[in-house]
């Protein structure tokens, strides 16, 4: 009996010991996750597109901070009397400056890099690979335009190549590579291959022809950014782009459709803030309203509306052009001279100032716009004006303005704007070569409404329209409109060598007043 018990015990011990890691490999696979073998990378591409539209966390984190709080107000599309809307008065908030960087490197950039690398030399995914390269170029240009030198060639590769502390590439080098990438990828798109992407591509449903146009249109944007710093290169690449074939009408516009799903990443981030989270914080800027009103721009009613009480989100307001009134930038709700009530022409209530139209741009299912026919035509107008490409600047200009007016319909203008209205507007405000650059870039400024990243970048490049900066108590730019966003403070801590080298390259330090490489005074 006793021996039996001992044998059982010893036997049990041996069994346990022998089976000490039985099933362990199975146990250590998370049943709720996909592996590299089972993953469909198109879904990751969807994520990159969606997050680039600005609402990475269902609360429009980066969109709120960089596109709205800073971008829209510095560029005087909007204005705000709310303290934390720091862009209105050029006060400093390090976290807001870094929000776009913070939200995208670990999300959309991580994803797009993974798609590009995991589909490399993969026949079944060859178009996905090229499309991902093209879209990555779009994402990286926006990032470098905001911050200057940025991690580019080594970005997002933490798992794939083990680079944990990416170097900051020079913006000049980044631009060279963006152009080369766009060209190469566009050329390698294979129209004859089966569309393996389909609805996973939120922009074009995997349509290779459209992506080709996108690549060359984006090439125009990238090239023209070099107009001051390297005109020759700009000229060359605009030529390449035109030869490759750019957008032909507004149906080519790169838009991400959104959904009326509050508190969801799939809602339009701008709308989520402007008519959701922060409905009373901003007004349309006097600068923009005055300009649109002064030129009888048919877009005014698509952009602005006057609500009885903006904090009531259901209040869609009155978008009659005549009642629109812009709020000047640089005022607050305090007790001093900068109190909004002291602003010239104060209408007696801040609610009399226009807010962003809640049936168009501030609508949860409004699209987010990445790149348009209007922008491309306007940039080509400038190229033509500069003599870099053949053709008439006025023709390009007219096409650009017309496309800019008609695209309001894509955002939801009601009643719809017509070509006739565009013609009327152009007749009243014709292109004049002598003021061409000012006209072109002012139009560009209007047509990039709610795409503050692009509006701000082009304004910095072109200087148009001439904006009057504010000089508010406690601003950090000595009363000038900021020229860049500052790097995340975290980078100084975790990537100090590369960060310091990048800051050294800025000349005047990691400040909002330092200029990026292509931004020459």
């Amino acid at each position, binding site marked *: 009996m*006793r021996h039996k018990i001992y044998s059982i*015990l010893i036997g*049990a*011990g041996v069994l*346990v*010991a022998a*089976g*000490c*890691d039985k*099933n*362990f490999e199975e*146990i*250590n696979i*998370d049943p*709720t*996750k*996909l*592996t590299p073998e089972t*993953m469909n*990378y198109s*879904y*990751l591409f*969807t994520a990159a597109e969606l997050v680039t539209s600005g609402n990475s966390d269902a609360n429009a984190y980066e969109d709120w901070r960089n596109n709205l709080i800073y971008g829209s107000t510095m560029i005087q599309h909007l204005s705000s*009397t709310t303290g934390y809307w720091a862009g209105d008065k050029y006060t*400093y908030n*390090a976290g807001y400056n870094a929000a776009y960087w913070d939200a995208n*490197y*670990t999300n959309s950039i991580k994803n797009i890099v993974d798609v590009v690398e995991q589909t490399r030399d993969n026949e079944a995914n060859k178009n996905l690979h090229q499309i991902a390269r093209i879209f990555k170029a779009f994402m990286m240009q926006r990032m470098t335009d905001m911050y200057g030198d*940025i*991690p580019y060639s*080594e*970005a997002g590769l*933490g*798992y794939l190549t083990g*680079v*944990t502390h*990416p170097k900051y590439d020079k913006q000049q080098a980044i631009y060279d590579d963006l152009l080369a990438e766009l060209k190469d990828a566009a050329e390698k798109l294979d129209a004859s291959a089966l569309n393996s992407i389909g*609805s996973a591509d*939120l922009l074009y449903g995997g349509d290779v022809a459209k992506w080709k146009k996108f690549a060359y249109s984006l090439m125009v944007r990238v090239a023209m950014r070099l107009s001051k710093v390297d005109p020759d290169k700009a000229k060359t690449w605009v030529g390449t782009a035109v030869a490759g074939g750019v957008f032909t009408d507004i149906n080519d516009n790169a838009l991400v*459709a959104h959904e009326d*799903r*509050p*508190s*969801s*990443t*799939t809602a339009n981030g701008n709308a989520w803030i402007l008519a959701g989270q*922060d409905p*009373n914080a901003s007004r349309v800027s006097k600068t923009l309203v005055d300009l649109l009103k002064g030129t009888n721009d048919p877009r005014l009613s698509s952009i602005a509306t006057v609500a009885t009480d903006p904090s009531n*989100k259901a209040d869609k307001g009155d978008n009659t052009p005549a009642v629109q009134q812009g709020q000047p930038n640089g005022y607050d*709700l*305090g*007790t001093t001279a900068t109190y909004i009530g002291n602003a010239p022409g104060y209408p007696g209530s801040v609610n009399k100032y226009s807010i962003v139209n809640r049936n168009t741009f501030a609508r949860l299912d409004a699209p987010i716009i990445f790149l348009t026919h209007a922008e491309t035509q306007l940039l080509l107008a400038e190229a033509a004006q500069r003599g870099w490409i053949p053709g008439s600047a006025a023709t390009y200009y007219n096409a650009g303005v017309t496309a800019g007016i008609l695209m309001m319909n894509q955002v939801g203008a009601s009643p719809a704007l017509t070509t006739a209205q565009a013609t009327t507007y152009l007749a009243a405000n014709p292109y004049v070569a002598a003021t061409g650059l000012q006209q072109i870039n002012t139009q560009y400024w209007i047509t990039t409404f709610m795409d503050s990243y692009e509006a701000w970048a082009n304004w910095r490049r072109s200087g148009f329209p001439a904006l009057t900066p504010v000089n508010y*108590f*406690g601003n950090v730019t000595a009363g000038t409109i900021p020229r860049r966003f500052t790097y995340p*403070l*975290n*980078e100084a*801590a*975790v*990537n100090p060598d590369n960060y310091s080298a990048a800051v050294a390259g800025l000349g005047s330090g990691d400040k909002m007043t330092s200029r990026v490489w292509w931004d020459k005074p």
Partner: protein
Amino acid sequence: MRKIQPNLHVMGCLLLVHLIGVHELCAQNSLAYSGDQPQVNSRHKRAMTMETDPIEQKQTLFAVLKELNKTRGVYFLFADQSLGNTMVNAPEGEEKNVERVLRQILASAGLKYKKVNEKTFVILESKDNVDITKAGTRVDFEVNEDSRIINRTTVQIVTGKVTGENGVAVPGVSVTIKGTTIGTSTDAAGVFSIDAKKGDVLVFSSIGYASQNITVGDDLSLNVSLILGDSQLREVVVTALGIRKEKRSLGYSTTDVDGSKFTQARETNIGNALTGQIAGVSVSGVSTGPSGSSRVTIRGNSSLGGNNQPLYVIDGVPFDNSNQGSSGQWGGADFGDGLSTINPDDIETIQVLKGVAASALYGYRGGNGAILITTKSGLKSKGIGIEVNNNLTAQKIIDEHEYQYQYGQGTQGVKPITTAAAQGSPNSSWGAKLDGSEAINFLGDKYAYLPAKDNWENFYQTGVSNQSSIALTGGNDKGHFRLGLSNLYMNTVIPNSNMKQQGVNFNSTYNITPKLQLNINANYVFETVKNRVSFSDAPGNVIASTTYIANSFDVRWLEPAVNANNFEMLPGLDIYFNNPYFVAYKYQNKTSRNRLTGGLSLKYSLTDWLSVQAAVTRDGYIFDVTNILPTGTGYSEGGNLTQHTTDFHEINGNVSLDANKKFGSFSVHANVGTNTQDNVWKQAGIFGAGPFKVPFFYSPSNISEKPFSYSYSHYRVNSIYGSADFGYKDFLYLTVTARNDWFSTLNINSNDILYPSVSASFVFSDVIALPSWISFGKLRASYAQSSNGTSPYRNLLTYGLQGYTISDQSVGFITQSEIPNNFLKPVKINEQEVGINVQFLDNRLGVDFAWYNKKTTDDILPVTISPTSGYTGSVVNIGELRNQGIELLLTGTPIKTKNFTWTASFNYAVNNNKVLALSPGVEEIVIGGAFPRWGDGVSVKNIVGLPYAQISGYAYKKNDAGQVIYDADGFPMRSELPVPLGSGIYKTTGGFNNDLRFKDLTLSFLIDFKYGAKIYSGTNLLMYSYGLHENTLLGREGGYIGPGVDESNKANTKAVPAQLYWSGISTDAHHVSEEFVYDASFIKLRSVALSYSLPASILKRGFVKGATIGLVARNLLTLMKHTPNIDPESNLTNTNAQGLELSGYPAVRNLGVNVNLKF
């Protein structure tokens, strides 16, 4: 009073002499000394009957007398103990007359006897004529009920009651007659009764108390008060895996705290109640209120990025103490941990295994030490015992704020005189001088511009907490049980916030057969908490609103909470600056926890020295969270809903074999076993979905988008372990243990590791002749290796799909934010420890000292990497960290008189921590999530060469003379990059426990202290920013000129408007973190309890067997601190990111009454 026979009167003195020199008796005797309950030792019995010398046919005199004792019921004393060893001829025949037998066997041995009384004889040498009243040794033979042979004329029944500190009855106290194995133990009411004679010395001993000797005198009704103590003599303690060992045999440091320490001035979270009690155990205050979690670390932090809290084991069941959620940079509530569900009334003792050697048998889980909680069990007493305890306390906030009250609401020196201006500045105290003039508030109402000093008083309420416990105990000779029921209700100081807890604790042992024993224990807790407070970021944090509201803003203006449309009545236009009444009454936060922790074990004794045990334990809970951001919330008008369930369980299966044997002078105790740990965690629900379609209706069905989220984690660890204790003559001990763990979480090719330990104990006082004032001395030393856990799924990149779609398209993501690593191996933690324990003056004074050196290598740490790599961390396996320190415990009884006793214990520990290495090329890592809400560039880091948890931020830039340098705008310049500003971990910790007992009245108090940590105070930062801090008075008129120099080293003359300056250095581009880093050292009067036990004489005849009433107080006074406006123990979370503070739960003072009744 009975007439006492003089000859027996002296017996007590005689008993001090050693007992007879039969080896086997040693073990038995020692038990009599020890305080362990006397047990029938079968080995002993057999030894007695085997004392025959086969060759000479002789027996020892002792054996012969023993037999006589047994058969005739007579009793013997030896004049000299050695006489017992005399070999004598066995008695012949069936001689009935005892004296004749004695004469026969003694004569040949040169001995004689002297008759004391009818049944008692003294054995003497023939030549002696010893006065038997002066010398002699009594032989106490095995006693059992039927053969009991005590002279009825001299034996009386001594009864009494044993109480502990505060007069609480102590059950289970072993009561033995010194020098004998006669004994009993106290019942649930602390009452005992024993047959003893006048002059007998009764030894009262119980774990956790100093044993006490009382000589039976004329009074046969004794009331005995035990004093808490740390008697090393023969105390048996629980060690790793529940193995009981004599404390003297341990080669490492372990401390036990009696359960009664937690029942008086109690804490909801037992972890917090450990503060100041044990040298080397540091409890970080977490400012998250009574339903929050605790952070307990032993001997410092030994993991750079992983878990640093010890393993908790309750009655042998590994107990998950995970925090269910804490606030981070962006707010959130602390959902508490496991320890907050343990009822102090159920705790028998808490054993803290400090060093790695102590916890090495727990394998990888032992790296941070272990805390073993033993709940009360029933006793082998007859009948049913009932104990009732009620603890009622009131809580009041300690308002530590010192606001400036000279300037009121407003901006730039101007008070609000329009509604708009008032709405623009609800949290800005940068206005005009508070002169009582007319001002306008946010409602448009006029008010006198004066300080609103009672905002805290007006908003917070007096909290009330009541915990009732009832325990039933019972048993018979087959087994015993204890059933504890408890109910806790707590209304906190925050309006509309409460906590309810019901618990059932069951403990039972049953002997199915004499060899097969069944043990069952179970602890069930049901807890609901209503409206846990959100911390850190302002939204949802009532403390933020009430702290930062302008100093002339009367918080009661906000009392309606809502506007006419039932939406939040905001104090201003800033939608993130809440109305605290709205948060308190309209936000809804409910959590419920159902937890069952239990174990079942069967132990079978194969022989008297070998047993086998199989046990299954399971710890599991369901934790539900419902969080409703209501319709009309200022910053989220549509509201939203979070509703999820966490389902956790861990099962451990264990089989072990235990052998305990003596070979001559050697003893061996060996244990081998296997263990399988299987841990599963699931969480499912919706997180932050909104808005509600139908306003004010809060149900998941009322939300169009409610992405369902599901997370899962599973891991297993299999182990084989063994331990062997070798003892030599009860003074030298050696313990060797080994455990091999296999991890499912690691690469299959390198997934196991062996953890060895060796420890030795040398009781030198038993060997070396020491001065008489040294009563006990022991040296100990150990070396051990342990580890820390790893998380599953860290070695392979995986992808997930989001809970939402866009245009019906699924959206993918990479699940890891840390780069996976397939080459991870287990962390190694090595520790050497030496210690000494010396007791002086008959244990009136004791010193215990320990030195340890603990080194962590191969630490798995998520190195903070640049997020531009796509990942925020990379998991590497090369961290090194060292903790070195000393622990000192002084225990003593400075005063001991009949009616008054003062016992005190002082503990003190210093831990020196140093980060030795991180990943190559990496000099610092940010501890996960260690970013404050406010303060650019501030984080908590581990930096090579510095102690753990460095608060890193911008320092003032200074010239060589140490003067601050100011820039051209008059702002102080700061360091180029964030620099280390001090560690958030206390280096020195300690406590001073005192019990003053006067008759039945006991006063206990604990003073504890901590030194050597810094804290980054977000509250002070915001008080600067909002113009509330007293420092911000500087420069209000004419601007502030910082004392220091300009960039050309000339005196700074540039004046900056006060608002710009103070809010500048606090929050924006001019932020200087150093300004907000404070020394967090403190001394506190932590708890005071005054209790009165009704004397046994009063209770004697009643139904009630014990009654104690106590006045209790906790967090009574801060005797020293250096942190203005905040409590220095206000850490934001219980994570590794220690040293950050912001708008935490206010310090709360508790006062109450504790009543304990025993029936």
